[in-house]
Structures are given as structure tokens and as C-alpha cells.
């Protein structure tokens, strides 16, 4: 399933993670090209977050290799992390720092120059955070925390953004802005690895989609190729997803529920 693409931003080969005797991620391989938005889908507990944590350097794989812009995560994690901005699904932050101080702190971790740091103004404005930037993060709402992390990620302007559930907690306006920012980032030749449960987002944003089930990469390709694989021409991603993840029993459940209501 590896793309023979010399310009890959992210290459994953045989990635494996076990917790005791349970294999959470099993020999997963794929690559993400430069300028590509790659969607990563799967049911709950399929191994999405474990995979993402390994890509972001938060978990050590038991097998396989991760290569980010020609740097190996196993041998040169610092270089890999310098090229990657990570947006987790739950916004845990330093509650006793202000939003502005948090951004300064993140910038210092990535050794950003003063000029690069100057870009935060536009993102804070876009996310309506200008008036809140000097307040403690502990008084931010869930969505505001998510937006300050987004600001940090876009401020870093890395060649690869790894994002777990990008729209959780965001209001419709901010969600729209995030989508546009992601598309814009990809247009500049950067890559985005995006995990989501929202099939609409995947359908709208992603160039290619990988579907993981029980730790194994079940399907990988464009929406068109997935349609062909599922033998569901003219179907939307939801139907393809249900077909490919083996949720056949869902039809029976829905029929039964309709029967109950009727």
C-alpha cells in the first residue's frame, strides 16, 4: 500500500504497536505525499489514536518505521518533530499560562524566530481570540482551548500537520475557518494527516482516505477507488465506510429500530 512517491512527507511501513498480548496497530503501511490531505478513518477502538500518537512521537512503536521528510522517527526523533505540528483531540494545556504565553512557550520549543512568531496575530484574529489572549487558559472554554492549539499549530507552519479530530468543540464559524486553513496549508505544498469520525469532513477535505479496522489498514485510496472496492457506485462515504468496516448488521438494527417506532 506504499505510494511510490519520492516526494512523500510521511512514510509509514509495517507500523505495529502491542499492549501486552493485544495488538492495537498491526503492520500498518501508507504514505502521505506533499501537498496531500490524508484522511484516517475507523470505528472506535480501531487504533487511530494509537497510530497518531506514534506518528507524533508520543508512543514508541513495537515494529515498523516512520519517516517524515526523509528523517527516521526511530533514529532522529528531534528532526521529525521539528517538521511536525500535532493537534490532539483533547485540549490539555498549561492552565496557569495565558493564551499568549502558551504560544510563546510553544514557539520557543520549536525555536521559532521572532518574525515567524508574528504570524499569530492573524490566527488569533481569525479565531476571535485577540481579546482573550492575555487571560489565563483555565478560564477558556473547550472550543477556545482547541482554537489556541490550532493557532499554535498554524503558527509553526510545519511541512506536516497531524490532527486528531480537528472539529471537536469548534463552533461552525471556526470549523469553517479550520477547513480553509487546512486546505490553504496543503495548497502551499504541506501535508496533513487527519483523523476524524466526521465522514463529511473527510469527504470534503481529503485527497485520499485510509480506513483502519481492528488495528489493520482495511482500505486505502481516493474516494473513487474506495467506492469501487466497496462496489457501491454513487454512494457517499458513510455507506462506503459502513460497508468496508463490516457494519452489515447495522441495516438490521436500523430496520428493527424503525419497526419499534412504527
Amino acid at each position, binding site marked *: 500500500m506504499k505510494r511510490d512517491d519520492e516526494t512523500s512527507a510521511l512514510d509509514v511501513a509495517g507500523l505495529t504497536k502491542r499492549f501486552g498480548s493485544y495488538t492495537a496497530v498491526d503492520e500498518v503501511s501508507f504514505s502521505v505525499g506533499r501537498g496531500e490531505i490524508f484522511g484516517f478513518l475507523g470505528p472506535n477502538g480501531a487504533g487511530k489514536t494509537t497510530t497518531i500518537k506514534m506518528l507524533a512521537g508520543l508512543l514508541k512503536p513495537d515494529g515498523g518505521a516512520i519517516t517524515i521528510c526523509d528523517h527516521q522517527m526511530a533514529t532522529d526523533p528531534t*528532526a521529525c518533530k521539528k517538521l511536525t505540528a*500535532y493537534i490532539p483531540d483533547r485540549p490539555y*494545556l498549561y492552565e*496557569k*499560562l495565558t493564551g499568549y*504565553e502558551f504560544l510563546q512557550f510553544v514557539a520557543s*520549543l*520549536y525555536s521559532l524566530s*521572532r518574525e515567524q512568531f508574528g504570524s499569530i496575530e492573524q490566527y488569533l484574529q481569525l479565531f476571535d481570540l485577540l481579546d482573550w489572549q492575555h*487571560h489565563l487558559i483555565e478560564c477558556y472554554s473547550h472550543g477556545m482551548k482547541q482554537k489556541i492549539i490550532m493557532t499554535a499549530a498554524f503558527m509553526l507552519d510545519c511541512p506536516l500537520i497531524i490532527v486528531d479530530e480537528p472539529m471537536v468543540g469548534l463552533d461552525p464559524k471556526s470549523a469553517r475557518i479550520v477547513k480553509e486553513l487546512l486546505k490553504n496549508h496543503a495548497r502551499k505544498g504541506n501535508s496533513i494527516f487527519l483523523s476524524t469520525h466526521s465522514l463529511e469532513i473527510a469527504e470534503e477535505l481529503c485527497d485520499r482516505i485510509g480506513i483502519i479496522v481492528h488495528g489493520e489498514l482495511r482500505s486505502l485510496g481516493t474516494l473513487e477507488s474506495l467506492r469501487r472496492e466497496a462496489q457501491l457506485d454513487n454512494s457517499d462515504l458513510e455507506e462506503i465506510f459502513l460497508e468496508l468496516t463490516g457494519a452489515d448488521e447495522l441495516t438490521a438494527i436500523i430496520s428493527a429500530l424503525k419497526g419499534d417506532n412504527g
Partner: protein
Amino acid sequence: MRLRLLTPFLRTMRNRFFPAGTVPMKSLAVGLFGLLICLVLYLVSLKVVGYFHRQSELGVILSLKIFQMAWIVMFAMLIFSCMVSSVSTLFLSQDNEIIFAAPVTPGEIYFMRYLTTTFYTSWMMAVFSLPVFGAYGKVFQAGVFYWPLLIVCVVATALIASGIGMSLTVVLVRFFPARQTKDIIFYLSLCFGIFIYIIFRLLRPEDLVNPDKYVHFVEYLSSISQPAGPYVPAAWSANLLSLYLMDREIDWLLLALLVVGAPSLFFIGEWAMQRFFLVGYTKSQESFGGFRPFTRTGRYHPGTAQWIFKKESKTFLRDSAEWSQLFMIAALVVVYLYSFKALPVERSPLQTEYVTNLISFLNVGMTGFIITSLAGRFVFPAVGAETAAFWLIQSSPLSVGRFLLYKFLFYLAPFTLLSLLLVVTSDALLKISGPMWWFSVTASLVICWTVVGMAVGFGALYADFKAENRAAALGGMGALLFLFTAMTVVFLIIAGGASPMYHFMRHWMSGREIHLAQRIALLAWFMGSLLLGVLSVGFFWRKGCRSLTG
């Protein structure tokens, strides 16, 4: 029905200590370690109480006075600790939303919180007080009823302390938001601790065993043989057990007060809960504070170390539970140094210079133990204090090793200053100069840096990113292991220096020539201590780094 809310607590305990119905090695090790501590406590108490007991009538009365004081101090500590915990468990707990949204009555919630809070705040007191009070039973050769009476007293005192603490908390949160109440109780308990500490020291307890200070012996005897206050529940326990220890008699009134007191206070608390809980809980959700904007910090300058230091200091200074501990340290320093000023070295039958040098030598160890306990409080939890936000460090280009190094450097300066302050000032008060001054400064620096380094390493190895605050991390197994290991290293460094320093000083004080072998022995001790420090720090850092990069 009341028991159903206890299910998560009971299951959590079972899953924590007996996962999958087995007894893992870790649980066994924790149990054995606890038993070992109990045994040591029992043996030490046996020796101390036995010593007092052998000192005729006066010793017996003194030992019982200490017995009563122990009960009362323990009781006061339990009330304050229960109040601080119950603000969290009753009003700020994360499972409140699930439980309070369910059709359960406040009384049911109170019952569950009452039992769990009592368990959390008093298990350690119960476990570690039993060997101490058990030693009294052994020394006084108490009858068979002493043991059931002791258990009833410990359990009843803990339940009464919880009853008082929780009832007061429910009423206080009715008037102040939960977070403020927590701070208020915290400051009160801190002030109480500092007050007790300073008063106890300024009373010069060493004079208690010096009857010369009393004009009449009878006056002295009567002043210390007064029974403890009759309105304090802990005194009921103390008096009940004292009477039984002395005369093998059971005061049924005191026993009845203890047995009836606990459920009575529970029902008062339950009533207060039904009456005030909803108002207090509503306030606890409103009191977020922080709507005040902070002044804009200076312009951004690249520099990771600088920003790690800034983040650490801001996080520390903006958390009242953290910076307020500095008062406690200030009190500790004042009392510690006052002790040197008050030392009656001139009354010693030995040569003053010999005594002061010996005290200066032992002072290095004492300073080491103080630094160790403070490192356990502030440095050990520093990695876990990153909380769940640690993902940011893990996913950044900053390596874990370098991150730990910055943490170490951040804490090194204040700990070095404190260590020097304690050693240099006490040396000045003791009028120490010459080789002993250099020895004490050098040894305390080696100890300080080793202990701070080990605290960072252990903190990484046992990082608890879910701990509510730094103080909470102190109750864990990792903190105990750190304290135990660091104190062993401190002891080894001091013990290693004893012989070479003794011979060196003996020659130096008598004005004799110091042999080359003595100089080499001292140098070997210094190099050995340095090596021990480097190896200890290196070993635990490597393990810590490995644990964090998992």
C-alpha cells in the same frame, strides 16, 4: 441502595491492587514495604516509650502526655486534611456531573463521599499510628481489651474528624465558592501547621526534661499530668486508652461518646448536605475566576531553556497552593536556625570547639534530610505537574533528556541557595571556620545537587500526570521510594566522610601536622561522594527518560 454509589470506589481499588483477580508483584511489594515501615515504627516507638517508661513515675507521665499530644495533633491534622479533600470530593470531583445528574439524593452522595474521603484522608494515619500506639500497649503490658479498644478509638476518631471536617466544608461552601473555600482552608491549615511548629519550638521542649527549670517538682509534675481537654474527641480516645493502660479500667462514658459521636456527626453532615449542597455546588461551577486579563508579557525571544524556566515560575507563582508553601519553608528555616542559636553548647561537659564541630558535621546530614524532603515536595512532582499537557513536550523537538535537564537547572538554584543558607548560617552561629566549614559547604552542595537530580529522575520515572496538584503526588509509592533512596544516599555520603574528617579535624584542632594519608582519605571521600551522586542521578535519569519515552 446507599452502597451502590460506592461501587466505582470499590471496583477501582480492586482493579488497582488486584488487576484481573490476581495479586501482582507490585501490590505485594507495596504491602511488604508498608509492613516494613510499620515494623520499624513499632520498634522505634517501643524503644522510645520503653525508655520513658523506665524513668520512674515522671517518665510514665511524660510518655502518656506525648500519647495525648499525638492523638490531638493527629485529630487536628485529620480535620484540616479532610476539609481540603472534601472540597474536592464533594464539589469539584469530575464524576459529580454523572452522579448528580442521576436520580440519587444528596444524602446518598454524602454517604459515599463521607466513607471515601474518610478512607483517603485517614488510611495512612490509621496504618502508621497503630504500630506507635501498639508499642504503648506492649510497654505498659496492657490487657487484652487494649487492642479492640485501640481499633475502636482509631476508627471512631477518624470518622469523627471526617464528620466535623465535611459538615464544616458543606456549610462553608454555602457562603464561599468552592475554590475559594479550598484556598481558605488550605491557608488555615498551613497557618495552623506553622503556628504549632513555631510555638512548639519556642516552648523549648528540651526544658521539659530539665526539672531544674521548675522551682518545685510538684508544680512540674502537676503541669504535665493534667488530662487532655474534655471537649476534644481525640482526647476521649487518649484518656480512654491512658486510663486502661494505667489502671486496666474502661471509662464507659468516653467509649459511649466515641461510638455515638461518629454517627451523630454523620447525620448532622447529611442534614447540612441536604440543606446546602445544591447552592454550594452551583457556586462551585460559577467560580472560575481568571476573567482578569494579565499584563502583556515582553516580546517573544527564541530560547527554549528561558521559556521552560518562565513557564515553571509562572505556573508556580500563579497557583496559591504552591507559592503559599514558601511560608512553611520560611518558618522551617527560622526555627531550624533558631535551634542553633538556642543550643546550650556551653553546658556540655566536652570541649566547646569539639562539640560545635561535631554539630556542624551532623548539620550537613540534617540539611541533607531537609533538602530531600523539600525536593520530595517540589522537585519530585515537577514532571507530573506538566499534567496531561505533557503531550506538547513529547511531540515537540525538545528531547526528554534536555527537558529534564532544564527542570533540574530550574530547581538547582533555589535549592543550592537554601542549602547554603542553612549550612553557612548555622556554621556562623556555631562559629565554625577552617576545614569543617569547607567540609560542610562542599558536602552539602554535593548532597543538594545529588538529591535534586535524583528527585527529577524519580519524578520522571513515577510521573503522575493525573495528580490534582503537586502535594497529591507525595502520597504515591514513587515519592516514598525517592525519599527512602535519597536519604540512603545522604546517609552514605555523611557516613563515608565521618572517619576521614574525624582524623583530619583531630590533628587540625590539636595543631599537629596533617599527614598526606589523611588528605588523601578526605579527597577519596570527596571523589567517592561525587561518583555516588553522579551514578545515582545518572541511573534514575536514564530510567526516567526511558519511562517517559515509553
